[in-house]
């Protein structure tokens, strides 16, 4: 197709909605990484083939981005019937075609709500009821590999507005009104970054998107890119127009092949329509975007390290100032935002900054996407207005603790964040409140922990991560992290001393104050915050040599209560270390020296004869 104009965009949108309304039913199959790994692609193929074989020309089957309800995937939704099918298997496709698409009867056994009443909407289920979708507005709705579907949902209208109706100053003013802050973690006002770069002198300016989602337990950005890649391309182009840049880079993790694939398709389709390239939409503005692959370095989430990596070097941070907004990629002014931040932009331009600022708290506006994972029933991707409480997220949306055990803590902000204890379940979540209680907003990983999780072990897990990921440039991070990790290992092995706690706090403080970048500056947060709220657990490890969660293997001992043991031999067969002996029908014993403390015997015993200390 030739280069599009604004009028062409409207034409495409109209045609596309014409195409849509010609179909009686639209079948949406989740094509996010989670569902794809459970064979959703095969479900999609089977549904398409089935519909074709049944001669259903009035049914459209498309593959969308992530629906968010990953726990119940693969998900298939049929519109306009609002049928929300969960845990669908490839072989279920035939039944959906025969019963639902041909006869018009929903397949009740596959519905999430088995007692679904006519007229109820899929969004009425608990998981979706409290969610507000701005960033994920198109995820699970459009086919991300078809630019026309994006255009039909007001896609590239914001860009047209920025090109032909607004001045760069007005764009920045709108962002200022919206109160949008960086979603990568630190929460710096987006409009200020753009304003600095706009004002900074430089012949060649750059727009960079940070899609190096390295935080373990987080996949917000991946899902956004997989489900709605154009929302990021459009926003980067808007940023380019606003600050006067004509080149953009998306720095994306190599571990996200599907997101890379969809971005490549999106960039190609945008170029074909002239939405990237020279003279965009008939204006005199040129802009193009290239992908750069990350290579698995957490520190590259730090903006100066990320830029070094795009330049082809080791991703080592540099002291700031100068900030990238003034002196960034190849020394030129560079706007760098993360995926979620960009995904908000087009909506703000179209609906206005005031609309966006109408959501959230006094200091944090709009919505936030979280990857809700860990010991929660409804694990998945959610988007809620800022100011939603953790209780609403975990218990209303998440459905509570999956194991039926007691909630212990939630962890936000990944290796840079802290734990949120039960007493703060009703705190409205925003940047300031989370900082106040010793955690951070971070990029949106939210991991729920129950009684089976040891807080000392969790702190050790994160420290292992940051020690491994420290680039080694500055000594507070390089040495401090290693020292704290050593102390934590001592404690989890039952060799800790009381003064170790003081040492940890002291080193942690030094790291916070003296590290070069945020990785080192926040690396001690998981320890400091668990110490603050769960000091008792640390003391138990040190004084009583006891791990109440049963995670720290060196502190565990398994034994068999002779009176209860029937001598059935089940544990003996289950023990992978050959540590259990005993004659049939006589009480067995565990040889402590051979025991690897895996707990297989405890899980296997039907008589409650095995105890863990």
């Amino acid at each position: 197709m030739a280069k599009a104009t604004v009028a062409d965009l409207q034409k495409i949108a109209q045609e596309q909605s014409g195409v849509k309304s010609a179909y009686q039913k639209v079948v949406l199959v989740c094509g996010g990484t989670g569902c794809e790994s459970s064979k959703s692609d095969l479900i999609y193929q089977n549904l398409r083939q089935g519909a074709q074989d049944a001669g259903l020309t009035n049914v459209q089957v498309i593959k969308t981005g992530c629906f968010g309800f990953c726990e119940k995937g693969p998900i298939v939704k049929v519109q306009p019937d609002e049928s929300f099918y969960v845990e669908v298997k490839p072989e279920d496709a035939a039944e959906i075609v025969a019963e639902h698409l041909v006869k018009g009867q929903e397949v009740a056994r596959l519905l999430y709500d088995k007692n679904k009443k006519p007229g109820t909407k899929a969004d009425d289920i608990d998981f979706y009821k409290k969610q507000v979708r701005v960033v994920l507005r198109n995820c699970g709705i459009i086919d991300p590999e078809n630019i026309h579907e994006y255009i039909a949902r007001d896609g590239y209208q914001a860009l047209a507005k920025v090109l032909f109706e607004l001045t760069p100053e007005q764009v920045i003013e709108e962002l200022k009104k919206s109160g949008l802050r960086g979603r990568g973690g630190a929460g710096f006002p987006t409009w200020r970054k753009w304003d600095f770069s706009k004002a900074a002198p430089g012949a060649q300016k750059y727009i960079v998107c940070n899609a190096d989602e390295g935080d373990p337990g987080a996949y917000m950005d991946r899902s956004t890119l997989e489900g709605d890649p154009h929302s990021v391309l459009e926003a980067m182009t808007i940023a380019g127009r606003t600050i006067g840049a004509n080149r953009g880079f998306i720095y994306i993790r190599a571990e996200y092949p599907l997101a890379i694939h969809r971005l490549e398709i999106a960039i190609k389709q945008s170029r074909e329509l002239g939405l990237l390239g020279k003279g965009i939409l008939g204006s005199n503005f040129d802009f193009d975007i290239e992908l750069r692959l990350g290579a698995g370095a957490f520190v590259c989430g730090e903006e100066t390290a990320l830029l070094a990596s795009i330049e082809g070097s080791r991703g080592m941070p540099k002291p700031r100032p100068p900030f990238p907004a003034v002196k960034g990629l190849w020394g030129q002014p560079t706007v760098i935002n993360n995926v979620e931040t960009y995904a908000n932009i087009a909506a703000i331009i179209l609906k206005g900054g005031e609309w966006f600022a109408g959501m959230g708290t006094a200091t944090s506006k709009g919505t936030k996407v979280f990857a809700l994972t860990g010991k929660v029933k409804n694990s998945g991707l959610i988007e809620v207005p800022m100011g939603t409480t953790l209780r609403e997220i975990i218990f209303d949306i998440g459905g509570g603790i999956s194991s039926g055990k007691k909630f212990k803590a939630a962890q936000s902000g990944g290796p840079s964040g802290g734990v949120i204890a039960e007493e703060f379940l009703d705190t409205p979540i925003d940047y300031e409140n989370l900082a106040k209680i010793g955690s951070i907003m971070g990029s949106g990983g939210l991991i729920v922990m129950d009684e089976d999780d040891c807080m000392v072990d969790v702190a050790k897990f994160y420290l292992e991560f940051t020690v491994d990921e420290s680039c080694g440039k500055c000594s507070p991070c390089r040495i401090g992290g290693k020292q704290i990790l050593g102390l934590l290992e001592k404690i989890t092995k039952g060799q800790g001393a009381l003064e170790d706690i003081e040492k940890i706090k002291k080193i942690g403080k030094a790291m916070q104050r003296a590290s070069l970048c945020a990785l080192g500056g926040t690396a001690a947060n998981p320890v400091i915050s668990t110490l603050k709220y769960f000091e008792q657990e640390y003391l138990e490890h040190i004084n009583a040599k006891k791990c109440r969660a049963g995670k720290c293997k060196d502190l565990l001992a398994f034994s068999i209560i002779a009176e209860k043991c029937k001598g059935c031999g089940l544990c003996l067969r289950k023990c992978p270390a050959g540590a259990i002996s005993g004659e049939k029908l006589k009480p067995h014993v565990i040889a402590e020296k051979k025991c690897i403390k895996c707990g297989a015997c405890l899980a296997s015993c039907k008589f409650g004869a095995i105890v863990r200390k």
Partner: protein
Amino acid sequence: MSSELQLSKDLQDFIKTWKDKPGNLIMILHRVQQEYKYVPREVALYLSKELNVPLAKIYGVVTFYHFFKLKKPGRHNIQVCIGTACYLKGGGDLLLELENLLGVGVGGVTGDGLFSIEGVRCVGCCGLAPVAVIDGEVFGKLKKDKLPEIIAKFKDK
């Protein structure tokens, strides 16, 4: 790898396309690893000459990033996720069990060259934790007693 270095035409073309672009090194290394599954020393030497970059810088980059490997992995590389959600749900136990079953540690390759084990950071399927990925195929909500069956399946591939 033979001492006579012969890069595929595709790889040569790729290097040619990227040769003069600033910041090309990491993209080229990705392409090399895609072809060989690791970065062979001979190729690193070739790149050093071709791109006019010191070998030390290439090794500096390769060793800095977790993604790049200097040792050839097994025919089937088993990646066990040890991101937070998977860790809490037993990712570590999966690793231990695999080490037991295959008789090699993390980073090692079995004697027959068939399998290698790798602990990886979050693959972004936290809803399916714990997760392992073998040759791109994702195994979610994985239990350790499923592992022998999965290994057997890949052995014949």
